[in-house]
């Protein structure tokens, strides 16, 4: 048994969710965990990956075809490597979700999506219905293609020294081309790995009003998130969305502000250690999952909270 984890990276650094996927891979395959770094001019990523504890080998495919991780080009590479592995894994991030089903279909196997626990090498737990039910599923396929819910697997430490093996690419398939990206720039911690997350909903009433959340977030050193309603209303960009079909977060502290708490939102944050809810509607469902709720006007409470945290 051996597992190959497809690393997520930007050709410069390993994305943190990769570490969570490696943790899951170790639960499955023990010491036989290899990492694939496919990209362009991405040797630095491979060198960083080699230092992750418990990694046996880093496979480095440095080729223009892999520059932006297009699934059409990367999938054939993963398939070529698959004969050496019992498990192919990736974090259930947008890039893992984009790539791995393509790999699975070409291998004629079912993917097991977004697992939250490993029961045995062929049996996994995964949330369904926005996390309102947990399914334990067993696969009969020879090669197991699995995506990992990052918040459910604790990232390991560094200190490893795996070998880096350069491998040849499969070239570009000419089906798709990268045009460009508009990535959110922020000095704040990344939402899915932040220890504290401050999230805003429709109650903020405008994008301008998110400034008061920014201030609280910066005082706490928190990441900034939002409900679908706030994203749909255009208050904040799509990558802020926490929920069933957005990002899943599980910080130590999640502060939901002006968020009513639809089940689709709860799906993305209910595994947080401590949840605080601030909402003027005392009947809002968010209070049912909150460890500490305050009923009242967020425009009063949030600045007050910011000031109180600053003082301490």
């Amino acid at each position: 048994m051996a597992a190959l984890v497809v690393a997520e990276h930007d050709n410069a650094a390993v994305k943190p969710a990769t570490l969570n996927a490696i943790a899951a891979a170790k639960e499955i395959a023990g010491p036989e965990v290899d990492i694939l770094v496919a990209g362009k001019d991405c040797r630095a990523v491979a060198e960083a990956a080699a230092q992750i504890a418990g990694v046996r080998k880093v496979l480095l495919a440095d080729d223009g075809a892999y520059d932006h991780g297009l699934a059409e080009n990367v999938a054939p590479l993963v398939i070529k490597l698959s004969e050496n592995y019992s498990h192919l894994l990736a974090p259930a991030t947008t890039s893992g979700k984009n790539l791995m089903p393509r790999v699975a279909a070409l291998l004629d196997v079912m993917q097991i999506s977004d697992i939250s626990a490993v029961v045995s090498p062929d049996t996994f737990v995964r949330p369904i219905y926005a996390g309102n039910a947990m399914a334990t599923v067993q696969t009969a396929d020879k090669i197991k293609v699995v995506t990992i819910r990052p918040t459910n697997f604790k990232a390991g430490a560094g200190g490893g020294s795996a070998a880096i093996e350069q491998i040849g690419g499969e070239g570009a398939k000419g089906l798709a081309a990268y045009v460009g990206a508009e990535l959110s720039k922020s000095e704040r911690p990344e939402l899915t790995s932040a220890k504290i997350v401050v999230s805003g909903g429709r109650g903020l009433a405008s994008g301008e009003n998110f400034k008061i959340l920014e201030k609280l977030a910066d005082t706490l050193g928190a990441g900034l998130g939002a409900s679908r309603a706030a994203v749909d209303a255009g208050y904040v960009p799509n990558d802020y969305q926490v929920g069933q079909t957005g990002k899943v977060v599980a910080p130590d502290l999640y502060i939901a502000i002006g968020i009513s708490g639809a089940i689709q939102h709860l799906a993305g944050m209910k595994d947080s250690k401590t949840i605080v809810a601030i909402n003027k509607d005392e009947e809002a469902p968010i209070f049912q999952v909150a460890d500490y709720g305050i009923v009242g006007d967020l425009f009063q409470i949030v600045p007050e909270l910011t000031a109180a945290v600053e003082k301490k």
Partner: protein
Amino acid sequence: MKALVAVKRVIDYNVKIRVKADKTGVETANVKMSMNPFDEIAVEEALRLREAGIVSEIIAVSLGVAQCQETIRTALAMGADRGVLVQTDAELQPLAVAKLLKAVVLQENPEIVIIGKQAIDDDCNQTGQMLSALLGWPQATFASKLKISDRHAEVTREVDGGLETVSIRLPAVVTTDLRLNEPRYASLPNIMKAKKKPIATTTPEALGVDVTPRLTILKVEEPPKRQGGHKVGSVAELVDKLKTEARVI
């Protein structure tokens, strides 16, 4: 050009689901069923492409039990031209769905397949990617903007870091994200008209596809319940609790 949209019948997104006592699944008897919301967005996008003169015909496909016909009718009422039902009582997993859709695509020859990025029941997020893989087509997942010109689609995708734009050659598969559009409601005259639109019915056997599930569901359980519901009276009390009780700040 033809567009094909796939529409899945799922438990309505407003329903609070219940796990069956015998842990075999969730209760679906006497529960309101609707079209998967992401597939509504797919239908809407196809309609807009037709209104823009790019698409000439929209075929709505659903797979599953006989009642999936209602889901196809909903798509027809929104404006799709005709339907295809792949009828079976078997459990269909995404790989099987992708194979069935491939068989329908090979019969219908659409230039574009638009489909929801994920179904809100199994939350798999696989079918579109699998379909494009099986067809050897490009894929543009999680689309929030779609522009078609000169046998290519330029698609803006919602990714973890923000937005990314790719250009894909047609034919291709596009999967929809929330911000692509806001689906229309079917008007009463259109609901009436939809009753007369044709729906062809076929089966996995007729399409020559083995739909045997690859995953066995061993059990379905309720997630652990959170003990929430505590209220605090003031910001000072909140900060104190976060510091001394929860120890998170």
